[in-house]
């Protein structure tokens, strides 16, 4: 028989009182867990949406336009530098991107991480109309342009397949199976893209090698889209690093939208967490209150324990043990109710978000509620330990 067993027996005798005290903890923990679970689901949803923004980085040739001026008279601009990036620089760029991501994400895998989609833009005439043909690497291109939807026909599958933007197809009256001539190379239309609302609608996409060959641009690309598959990927660092180490190119991070979007989510999560914190604090006062009255109602028991040899610390221990019971109880119930709460109102807050169980919040809920229960008990417990034995008997 140990002290905690005595406390356990006492708790069993005063079930209602203990449950009442636990209620304060439950409400606080429930709110925090509910909010976190909702924020988690909301974040996951926004991350998913962010992926649809496409590449995180764009690498383009470093072209400098120099204004030519004579006094106040403009003589036009002089373009310095190449309009193309040699494809031979892709491995160096990949190396920079991957090593940065590995470092941040602590990945040991030596395989490719970032998706790199090269593009070669060329002007050409199809059926007498000027269009832009884009040479792409079909697989990474598809990953980067996740919003692409091939409405008719199929995606690029062979060296002679081309994909046509919806407007181009409409304007040039092109259909799946038609042949288009790209600088005298005949290619077959494999598919037509659904409308995207972007410049893609006006372009024709063909395998990179075929375009390079047709336009005599072997080993050349116009730009590279880089997509890192993580949202915390250090795109700015990667861009800096590429700019420093790879000559003749300019890397631009395209994360501004993502950033403001995430900032909003963070602000909202913080606001909700503050709400949860306040609820927790209110719960704390509730528990302090119940513990105070619990002390009051047990003044006589405390006197008895003191009279038969309990030290002050042992009296405090009795109350701390009780707080642990309340904390564990409150943590379990609070977690369950908090998750249920998130299920109930999460879809209303983040439209159409599916809430999922977040098991890692369970230890958190347990920890929070135990800390709250113990913190709320310390003051009443110290008060309890200071009651003079004779006074405790007199009061009853």
């Amino acid at each position: 028989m140990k002290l905690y067993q005595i406390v356990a027996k006492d708790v069993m005798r005063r079930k209602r009182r203990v449950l009442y005290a636990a209620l304060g903890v439950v409400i606080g923990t429930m709110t925090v867990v509910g909010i976190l679970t909702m924020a988690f689901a909301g974040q996951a949803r926004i991350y998913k949406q962010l992926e649809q923004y496409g590449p995180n980085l764009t690498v383009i040739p470093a072209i400098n336009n120099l204004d030519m001026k004579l006094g106040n008279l403009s003589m036009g601009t002089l373009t310095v530098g190449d309009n193309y990036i040699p494809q031979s620089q892709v491995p160096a760029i990949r190396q920079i991107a991957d090593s940065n991501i590995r470092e941040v994400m602590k990945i040991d895998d030596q395989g490719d991480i970032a998706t790199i989609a090269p593009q070669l833009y060329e002007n050409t005439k199809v059926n007498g109309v000027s269009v832009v043909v884009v040479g792409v690497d079909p697989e990474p291109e598809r990953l980067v342009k996740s919003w692409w939807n091939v409405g008719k026909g199929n995606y690029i599958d062979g060296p002679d397949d081309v994909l046509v933007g919806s407007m181009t197809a409409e304007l040039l009256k092109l259909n799946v199976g038609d042949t288009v001539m790209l600088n005298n190379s005949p290619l077959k239309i494999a598919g037509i893209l659904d409308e995207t609302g972007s410049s893609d609608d006006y372009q024709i996409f063909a395998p990179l090698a075929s375009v390079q060959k047709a336009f005599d641009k072997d080993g050349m690309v116009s730009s590279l889209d880089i997509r890192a598959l993580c949202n915390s990927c250090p795109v700015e660092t990667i861009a800096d690093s590429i700019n420093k180490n790879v000559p003749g190119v300019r890397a631009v991070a395209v994360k501004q939208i993502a950033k403001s979007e995430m900032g909003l989510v963070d602000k909202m999560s913080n606001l909700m967490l503050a709400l949860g914190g306040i609820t927790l604090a209110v719960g704390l006062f509730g528990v302090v209150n119940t513990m105070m009255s619990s002390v009051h109602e047990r003044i006589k028991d405390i006197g008895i324990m003191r009279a038969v040899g309990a030290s002050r610390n042992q009296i405090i221990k009795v109350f701390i043990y009780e707080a642990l019971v309340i904390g564990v109880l409150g943590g379990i119930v609070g977690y369950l109710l908090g998750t249920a709460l998130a299920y109930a109102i999460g879809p209303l807050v983040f439209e159409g978000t599916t809430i999922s169980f977040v098991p890692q919040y369970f230890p958190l809920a347990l920890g929070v509620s135990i800390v709250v229960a113990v913190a709320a008990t310390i003051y009443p417990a110290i008060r309890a330990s200071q009651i003079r034995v004779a006074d405790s008997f007199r009061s009853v």
Partner: protein
Amino acid sequence: MLEINNVTKIYGEGTARVVALDRVSLKVEDGDFIAIMGPSGSGKSTFLNIIGGLDRLTSGEVMLDGHRIDNLGENELVDIRRGKIAYVFQQYHLLPSLTAMENVLLPLIFCGNGADEQKVKTILARVGLGKRAEHKPSQLSGGEQQRVAIARALVSGPSLILADEPTGNMDQKTGNEILELFKELNKEGRSILMVTHSADIAKQAKHIITLQDGQIISKAALQLVR
């Protein structure tokens, strides 16, 4: 073993000032059995509480085995309660959620010397409750509850037992049984200070002191045939 010198206890201040004990002195020898009598409010219980360190005195001193105990800190008082002085109360003061056995175990648990259930069983048998060890206080009669309380007082092996009207809530027959138990404990060499209202009970002690208005008005040595 116990010496009480000029102990005064004052409750409250100003007009609410009550002198509960007024310069009381008393000497208790080893193995003594003193009955403390007096009308209600005469300071009997206060006297007992101060001796045992359950209450603080206003002035004077209490010596136990040659050491002052009235000015001890809480932790040192705990040590005294864990082996030298034990209490028996009129209201029994048992923890209602615990069985008789567990109530008696309580001092051992607080003491930290391991809960020796065998020892508790022996003591419960000694006070005549061998078969009721697993009963809760609510399932026991008043006399039985007081036996549990006495067993609890005995378990830490005190040399002085302070009993505050231990038979106050009992009929005469039960009261006498409890008194017999105290007499046996006294024969074993334990000193006993017992507050009582009953002259019949008091007569069976070795000494009687009578308190009135916070002062000892008489001390009598009883040489009765026991």
